[in-house]
């Protein structure tokens, strides 16, 4: 799915939302979505009931952060953290529109305050720290808030000794925060190093699409890395590469399956099997964690920043 398709998709989703506001009876809700991959016309409610996976071709539609967490976390187990953390405009950035306006637009379009949701939950009974990115908010771009929320989540996980699951979906760093965005790569990677030294499990889940600064930091640092089928994942975008090397790339380039074949990820797991896979992975690693480790022993940890 390229950006154009994504815009079309978003337009359709908006139509669905708007439609929902107007229509009241179930019959009228029978809106149809055409599968991006196989073109099959899908009844939108059926699609949603199937976790937004096309029942015909298994195309995994992009989903929002809260939907993602709902699919993974046990019912009512999710407890959101740092929901008040929102972006400021440190660079007073203005291109064709001001960053402040773009932030407001992003919130209006997605209903979210930022491109990531963090919190704690249980996954089939096992506690975990979890984050999910939302491409619908500013293309899932990472600015100060995304970096800070991830870092705080990881620090909380260290203190509470929880495994960390991060579901990525991002176009990369947020240009409107300039160099501050770039530095979030270092900040989140540093936090993950502390998690690593605390011997805690970090599972990274890559979903359509994950690129740029997000893959070049926390998304590629999982102890275990999982990708959804068909998800496009990479460092540089396809067009940038094609312009650079002046040749066409193979169709499967940068897909989850390509990454698996090229040794970059541990497994491709279809959406419906993600919760049980996470459960098994967390269960497998939890008893092996030495219990003696505690915060005080992390001599280098700047955990004075943590709000628990």
């Amino acid at each position, binding site marked *: 799915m390229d950006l154009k398709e994504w815009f079309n998709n978003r337009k359709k989703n908006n139509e669905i939302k708007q439609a929902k506001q107007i229509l009241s009876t179930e019959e009228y809700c029978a809106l149809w979505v055409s599968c991006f991959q196989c073109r099959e016309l899908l009844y939108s409610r059926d699609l949603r009931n199937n976790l937004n996976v096309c029942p015909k071709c298994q195309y995994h539609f992009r989903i929002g952060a809260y939907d993602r967490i709902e699919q993974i976390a046990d019912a009512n187990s999710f407890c959101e953290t740092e929901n008040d953390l929102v972006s400021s405009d440190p660079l007073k950035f203005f291109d064709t529109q001001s960053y402040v306006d773009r932030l407001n637009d992003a919130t209006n379009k997605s209903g979210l305050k930022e491109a990531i949701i963090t919190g704690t939950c249980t996954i089939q009974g096992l506690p975990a720290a979890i984050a999910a990115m939302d491409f619908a908010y500013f293309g899932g771009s990472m600015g100060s*808030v995304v970096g800070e929320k991830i870092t705080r989540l990881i620090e909380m996980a260290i203190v509470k000794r929880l495994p960390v699951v991060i579901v990525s979906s991002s176009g990369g760093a947020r*240009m409107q925060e300039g160099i*501050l965005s770039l530095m979030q790569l*270092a900040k989140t990677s540093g936090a993950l*190093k502390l998690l690593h030294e605390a011997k805690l499990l970090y599972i990274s889940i890559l979903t359509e699409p994950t690129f740029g600064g997000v*893959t070049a*930091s926390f998304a590629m*640092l999982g102890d275990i890395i999982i990708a959804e089928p068909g998800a496009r994942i990479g460092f540089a975008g396809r067009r940038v*590469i094609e312009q650079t090397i002046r040749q066409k790339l193979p169709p499967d*380039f940068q897909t989850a399956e390509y990454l698996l074949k090229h040794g970059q990820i541990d497994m491709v797991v279809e959406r419906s099997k993600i919760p049980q896979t996470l459960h098994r992975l967390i269960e497998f690693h939890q008893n092996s964690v030495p219990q003696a480790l505690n915060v005080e022993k992390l001599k280098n940890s700047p955990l004075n920043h943590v709000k628990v």
Partner: protein
Amino acid sequence: MTSNKLPPLDFELPLSNLNSQIEALERQLPNNPQLEQEISELYKQYESLKKTIYGNLRAIDRLAIARHPNRPYTRDYLERFDPNWLELHGDRHGVDDMAMVCGLVKLDNYKVVVVGTQKGRNIREKQLCNFGMPQPEGYRKALRCFKHAQKFNLPIITLIDTPGAYPGMAAEEHNQAQAIAFNLFELADLTVPVISVILGEGGSGGALAIGFTNTILMLENSVYSVISPEGCASILWRSADKVQDACEAMKITALENKELGIVDEIIPEPLGGAQSGWDEAAANTKKCIIKHLELLSKETDLVKHRINKYRKIGFYKD
């Protein structure tokens, strides 16, 4: 130092014109000794104009200086730091990426491991160095040398001058993203002092991959940004003409990076930019590195120092 005759940069045009005037008069001087006074006046004007121009550079002018083809590159600095420096090669896994230069270097009494990106001077060198854009193997070569430094308790100096990590097919296949991410992960808890210097272009993740350090220094006319101004302009303005706007908006200069709390100190360049005085640029850089090595030697926990430095970066409403 090379002295390639190159067309002047945009903002240098007035200087260049004045220079042509002076040269023309000088050619007439043998037959017209009375011109000497005028020439002398023009010289003063030239010097004054140069100071004015270089004292009022826009971000896009600095970008041009940072990319100036006569600007000293990593190897030029290394030769001036320590003519006997010993180069280390290779990632041990099949590739020696020439875009990443690694070596054992003495800075006066300090023995350090230097890791730096390298652009090429002539066409052949540029190709060998891939125009300063490392492959994943280049970052892994850097990591090997970081670990060497860690083992022998040697400080690490990284010299940054890169448009970014190479966006190629093999680079993606070999996991460019992971190469950068893993360097960040491994840089995080090195117990030795790590100092980076942005020499010219500090291009995005490809720069940060060797730039997660205790101290960040920038040369006066270097730039450091999350994406190239051209990339930013084409995405946000959808226009290649808006590079200047992108430069201004992203705050890419050394001064702006210092104001944002990213950069610790700005290293002065000779008037006219580092390209007009390699030795001076190298001497200033060396002096500043040594000063910061001394400052870091007072830190008791360099891991905490490093992680905390980045931990604090970011603006948000809480």
